């Protein structure tokens, strides 16, 4: 189980008078994600989703609060946690000079996948994602969709328990987006926990078991998509979000 408790992240920005000003990208976010759930983190651009997911993935250090994966925390168990998770964002970049196989082999190195099992694991993932035809091609020569498949494969090599996906479909065409959505559904079937941030409310409504709506760094609503729609007396999450914020969106 993933437990997020009172997570805060403070940044410094410059105001119009060129003076340094503190602001909280996330200001006291708490929620839980049960095993086998797809939890959607929804909100407009600038709501604090990326900062939140980066803190959960261990790339950013929280100013306050804790991240707990099955009783493990980053201060004491950073490496153990990172072995359990996979992080993929919409603008995740991979090493273009490597071939797909070399990249996956490198990831196996980092995740301590035994050499004896490595080839079979990579071939299995390649078959699952349909990458056989470009497995030995350099990544720089692949199409956007193929590159996205490689990115997903990168996340799968160590068979993580948790997937943290930040705007993973953002900017992708309909086919590439579908690759990601299918992957999420398949991994859920295997009992994986998926944290999925997006500003596409309809997409979240279709795949998420649980939804956290955030705006200006705070949680404004939490629940199943149905319960949120019911409470806000709306027919979709998009309308529900606007109902909750009173129509105001701050994209700072």
């Amino acid at each position, binding site marked *: 189980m993933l437990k997020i408790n009172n997570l805060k992240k403070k940044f410094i920005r410059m105001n119009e008078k060129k003076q340094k000003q503190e602001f909280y990208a996330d200001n006291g976010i708490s929620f839980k994600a049960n095993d086998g759930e797809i939890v959607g983190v929804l909100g407009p651009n600038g709501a604090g989703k990326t900062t939140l997911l980066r803190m959960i993935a261990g*790339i950013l250090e929280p100013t306050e609060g804790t991240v707990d994966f099955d009783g493990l925390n980053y201060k004491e168990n950073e490496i153990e946690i990172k072995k359990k998770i996979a992080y993929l964002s919409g603008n995740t*970049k991979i090493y273009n000079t490597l071939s797909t196989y070399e990249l996956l082999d490198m990831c196996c190195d*980092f995740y301590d996948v035994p050499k004896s099992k490595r080839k079979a694991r990579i071939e299995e993932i390649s078959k699952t994602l349909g990458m056989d035809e470009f497995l030995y091609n350099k990544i720089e020569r692949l199409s956007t969709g193929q590159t996205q498949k490689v990115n997903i494969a990168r996340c799968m090599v160590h068979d993580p328990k948790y997937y943290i996906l930040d705007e993973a479909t953002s900017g992708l065409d309909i086919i590439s987006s579908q690759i990601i959505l299918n992957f999420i559904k398949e991994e859920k079937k295997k009992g994986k926990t998926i944290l999925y941030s997006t500003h596409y409310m309809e997409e979240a409504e279709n795949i998420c078991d649980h939804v956290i709506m955030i705006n200006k760094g705070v949680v404004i609503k939490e629940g199943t998509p149905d319960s949120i729609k019911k409470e806000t007396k709306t027919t979709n999450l998009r309308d529900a979000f606007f109902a909750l914020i009173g129509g105001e969106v701050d994209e700072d």
Partner: protein
Amino acid sequence: MKTKISHILKKEIREMFRDKKSLSMMLIVPIMIPLLVIGMSALFEMQMNKPVTDYNRIGFAYELGEVEKDFAKEFELDVTTGNLEEIEEKYKDGFLDLYVTKENQEYTLHGDDNDTTSYASSLVESYFGAYKEYLQEEYLKEYEVDSGEVIHIIHINKEITEEENYFSSYITNYSFLFILMAITVSATYPSTDTTAGEKERGTLETLLTFPIRSKDIIIGKFLSVSLSSIITGIISLILMVISLIIAGNMFEIYEEVDMMLPANSLIFSSIVIIAYSLLISGLCIAVASKSKTFKEAQSALTPLTFISFFPGMIAFMINVESSTLLSLVPFLNFSLLFTDITNGTVDYINIFLMLLSTIVIIGIVLGIIIKQYKSEKVLFSK
């Protein structure tokens, strides 16, 4: 916990050897060494063997006596005489290398500040020296004084052990300085690429999601940049030795000088090269890792590039000698040790102190970068 340094090192080396720019920096820069050695040797030889006809066209704005003409002939002066206006005109038109005016017993040499004038001036001074001595002797003879006893009142004999060939020392020292420059240039590109470049390409964020400690990432990157610098340094040293041997056989200025560095000098040189490579790689990574983009990192590294070889260059120019204290001064210690290696006066304590100082600085620098790498100011600063 199993370390991931070797995996990071493997990743970095693979990237480095697949990147044409990194490879060219590593391998092409040392090629400049033979050009430097052969080019400078040729220049020295040309200066040394400059034919007198290149600078002996001397104008005299007065008539020469018979004795003066004899001396001019002896010193191979190509004499032109005339009045001041004519001589000045000829000098301006480039028909003369220097001209002399006379007022009573005062002679003045006129010329521009250039290489030919310098040679011509030196020739005319020798001519006047001989002529002056002749006049002194004549004067003394007139008063029946033994000129030999007055002019040659003291005799100076030289019993100095033949000093090391000046050109050989000079060229060897400059080559060593160039090796330091080559290593610096070689460290700059991969350190920029592996830090700011990785940040700019967006792969650093991906790397940080892997279960690898910042310490392992930094040390892996540091070792890969160091390896690139060491390869450049060692290739440069090999090319330098080969070039010196070729130059030794090719040019007369190195006659009777063994241009091959002795085995212990090669070992000491390799130690200095490795130590310098480690230091400059650590510093380059420290500076570049603070930059957001490749371009910014390159700008930030420019001052370091100058700082790295300026102390050595200045020390070489003003003949600073090595000491235990100076062996602790970064950058300066490397070039002073190279000078000692050239002169065959290496002190083991100085080598030890240089290594100690380098290790301490690298430790501090890496410690700072490892700490920085946990900070989002370095990773996501915008």
